[in-house]
């Protein structure tokens, strides 16, 4: 019975001071001792995850050994750069801005994306904005098929379900953004003999919310074991600027503002976090439901979605596979 449930959101509480020192010791071991690199490059988006990683790297390696990179492009929110700068200034670390729009234009990122959009929204063109969204899946057994929301220059919005080819075309084109950012991060890593930080939290890492060889590529991922709500706890402990702590999570990949829930999780992140914890710890849906503010059926659907996305994410996380182990290396 729900009244007997011992599960509460408190299960995700951590000792932020101890966790910070544990991560810092691990970062020093990985970066200095294992990789023999002199510091870390951190791509900062102005979001909570990359900000916390920048703070952790500065704490662990020393602020003079951290380079923060901002890589805005034509669809980026101006807030991302402003908040990213706030992180660099708070930490007193070096930062560089690389506008990646020209590279993306050269790769025909926007053109390819727009061609795909026009297969389902023929009028899509100059001055239009877009984002892709998922339906709410927690209250229904429906399959998760993406739709595109477009906004015309005069502000009219329209939502259309994506065909297979349109969906694949849009995703393939927009993935240029994350891969280009990572390419620039490795440019600076090569230049300075630094290692590249990855910024996924546990939810993203587990569920495949990253682009393979894009933001999924890194030399170390210091918060991949932390649930999103634990990342927020570290942010508060480390003194990440409050505006960043309050900022709703966004993908900042599409020209219309897109929350991570719309793009991927279909649930507020705090609830999703708790469901992932429940799933990982074998907690029955009925027992978790009251703590998550959901009913049993909803939690069962989320557990099922987690399993389904986890299966897809295995490919995204996989290192290149070899036919056989190679000895001596």
């Amino acid at each position: 019975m729900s009244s007997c449930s011992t599960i509460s959101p408190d299960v995700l509480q951590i000792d932020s001071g101890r966790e910070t020192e544990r991560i810092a010791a691990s970062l020093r071991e990985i970066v200095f001792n294992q990789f023999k690199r002199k510091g870390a490059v951190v791509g900062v988006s102005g979001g909570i995850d990359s900000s916390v990683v920048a703070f952790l790297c500065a704490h662990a390696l020393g602020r003079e050994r951290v380079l923060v990179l901002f890589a805005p492009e034509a669809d980026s929110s101006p807030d991302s750069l402003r908040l990213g700068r706030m992180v660099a200034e708070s930490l007193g670390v070096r930062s560089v801005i690389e506008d990646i729009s020209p590279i993306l234009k050269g790769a025909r990122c926007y053109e390819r994306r727009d061609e795909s959009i026009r297969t389902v929204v023929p009028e899509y063109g100059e001055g239009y904005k877009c984002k892709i969204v998922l339906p709410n899946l927690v209250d229904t057994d429906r399959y998760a098929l993406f739709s595109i929301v477009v906004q015309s220059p005069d502000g009219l919005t329209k939502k259309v379900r994506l065909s297979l080819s349109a969906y694949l075309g849009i995703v393939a084109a927009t993935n240029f953004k994350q891969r280009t950012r990572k390419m620039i991060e490795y440019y600076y890593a090569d230049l300075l003999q630094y290692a590249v930080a990855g910024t996924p939290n546990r939810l993203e890492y587990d569920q495949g919310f990253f682009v393979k060889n894009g933001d999924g590529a890194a030399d170390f991922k210091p918060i991949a074991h932390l649930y999103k709500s634990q990342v927020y706890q570290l942010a508060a402990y480390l003194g990440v600027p409050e505006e960043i702590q309050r900022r709703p999570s966004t993908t900042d990949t599409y020209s219309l503002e897109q929350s991570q829930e719309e793009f991927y999780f279909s649930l507020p992140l705090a609830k999703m976090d708790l469901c992932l914890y429940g799933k990982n710890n074998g907690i029955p849906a009925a027992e978790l439901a009251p703590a998550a503010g959901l009913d049993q059926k909803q939690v069962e659907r989320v557990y099922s979605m987690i399993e389904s996305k986890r299966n897809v994410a295995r490919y995204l996380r996989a290192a290149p596979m070899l036919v056989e182990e190679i000895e001596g290396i």
Partner: protein
Amino acid sequence: MLMSNSVAQEVREFIVSNFLYGQESSFKDDDSFMGGGIIDSTGVLQLVAFLEETYGITVEDEELIPENLDSICYVSVYLARKMSATAKANMREQQASTLGGNI
């Protein structure tokens, strides 16, 4: 039922060719595509595209449920129902246009 059996065979061929890469497996007509790890969410999109293009139907949002799409049996029953409804709708449209033409 002849049509259903033929549809079932076509759907099976599509699944084997697109998701099992031609490696015929022993999956049964009532085995769950999702539960068996045969298709994922992008696979559902691919299945929907196949059904719409091959059978000239439109899969509505509210029809995107396991009871319609999660096994060969479910797809066959759904398709039979859908094609019958589409045929009736077409017939009604034809009758209406014939009547309209006579006025």
